[in-house]
């Protein structure tokens, strides 16, 4: 599957880790883990910068994470205007950090650093696949 199905708007079509999109379609968010040295990667990488191996396992991002930081964006770049306002942020899942948007279902007033979140996959009306954080 072509990687340009990933995201509200895609900017990249080719990557060796395009199976990321296949997993999104199955409802899973996955990073990679080096089979040789065990280093974990999110976002996923095809190649390990630690041991130079390209032999990777797909590692599931699951469970409960802590929100590391966030911002409520009142402005957006081209292609995202209709979604404004939205909240982008980063969460830590047992040492693996994941960047993404917070679900619109979360009341913006309630968002705070340290809040517990989980990831879930989403599909937009135009068929684009992504993931978002929800309250855990």
């Amino acid at each position, binding site marked *: 599957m072509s990687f340009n199905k990933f995201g509200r*708007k895609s900017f990249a079509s080719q990557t060796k880790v395009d199976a990321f999109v296949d997993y999104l379609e199955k409802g899973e968010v996955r990073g990679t883990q080096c089979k040789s040295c065990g280093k974990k990667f999110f976002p996923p990488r095809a190649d390990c910068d630690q041991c130079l191996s390209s032999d990777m396992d797909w590692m599931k991002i699951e469970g409960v994470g802590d929100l590391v930081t966030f911002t409520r964006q009142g402005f957006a770049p*081209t292609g995202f205007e209709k979604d404004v306002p939205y909240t982008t942020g980063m969460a830590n899942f047992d040492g693996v950090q994941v960047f993404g948007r917070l679900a619109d279902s979360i009341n913006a007033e309630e968002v705070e650093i340290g809040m517990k979140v989980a990831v879930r996959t989403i599909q937009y009306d135009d068929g684009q696949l*992504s993931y978002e954080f929800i309250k855990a």
Partner: protein
Amino acid sequence: MSKDVAIIGVGQSTFVRNYPGSIRELAFEAWREAAQDAGITAKDINASVICSAPEYDLQRSPAGVIAEYLGLTPQPTFAIESVCSSSTSGLRVAYSMVKAGLHDIVAVVGFQKMSEITSADSQERMGRGSDIQWESPFGTMMPAYYAMHAAAHFKQYGSTEKDLAMIRAKSTTYGAINERAVYRKVLTVDDCLDAPVVTSPLKKFDCCANADGSSCVIVASADRAKELCKKPVWFMGLGSGSASVTLTGRDNCYGLTAAMKAAQDAYAMAGIKPQDVKVAEVHDCFTIAEMLAYEALGFAEPGKGVEIVREGQNLIDGKIPVNVDGGLLSKGHPIGATGGSQVRTIVLQLRDEAGPMQVPGQPEIGLVHNVGGVGLYANVTILGR
């Protein structure tokens, strides 16, 4: 201090909203001032380093066009880019070439005509400012990343929106007395706090003013500097660093590790401590960036940057005067020109020629902190007289 490479001339254009000319004419303004300042002509320059963020340039490979217009052909010329820190990256290359003995005099020319592209094109480029494969698809933008650093800094260290407003109010005080600044109005802390939110917790005046502008720094070997210049300003330390583009690769969001590394390396090379710095220009593209700079540069311990703000240590007569030319916030931020403009300010300060912005007490050591991207690239340059 080893006096082997010097700055013998500096120049910058006035930073404006819409420059009524081409990029070559814009670059010429800074070059003319720097050449006149150094008392040299184009034939004295052995090489030029041209710096800009290419996403704003319509001209492909602008180095050749700029060098031609400045009369710097047939000498070597090439471009150096690290987005907002391009011209101090260029300065690092110029220093290296002179130190290596490859050239005696090198001109570093930075420019950006941000109005060269339409607002729509600018919005489109904004979307590609982060990692296009993994983070741009979420609709991120540069102010959002700095906002996330502000939120994390607030949480970790107890800094507040008011602290950031105080940083901006300070910058407007000095922007108002800098004839080269794009934003000349004075704002109160309340003005800043009452402004509309751009991306929480950053508000309108927490963000720097876009501008068109150019800068030029002329770097020379010791022999040429002593021969040509009454007040050479010497390189004492240069540090540089980088960090992951993706936020997920960062250790935390309340500091910029690239800037910390750059600072440590620059201090080590210069053989000085943070308290030896008597005037500084830091990369305040957003108010929070200035707070992070205090801590990265060791002007305050991590988490204690708020004391610099609340005690007014950053004022022109304070313990460590910071951005007394208005900084990026008020002077403006023409991306490729910014670093060279910061260097110009420090050179003028060390020569006691900064006019109404002059820090009292004849500072002997000054520092420039110039960051590209959201802490993606960082250059710290320490200068002395």
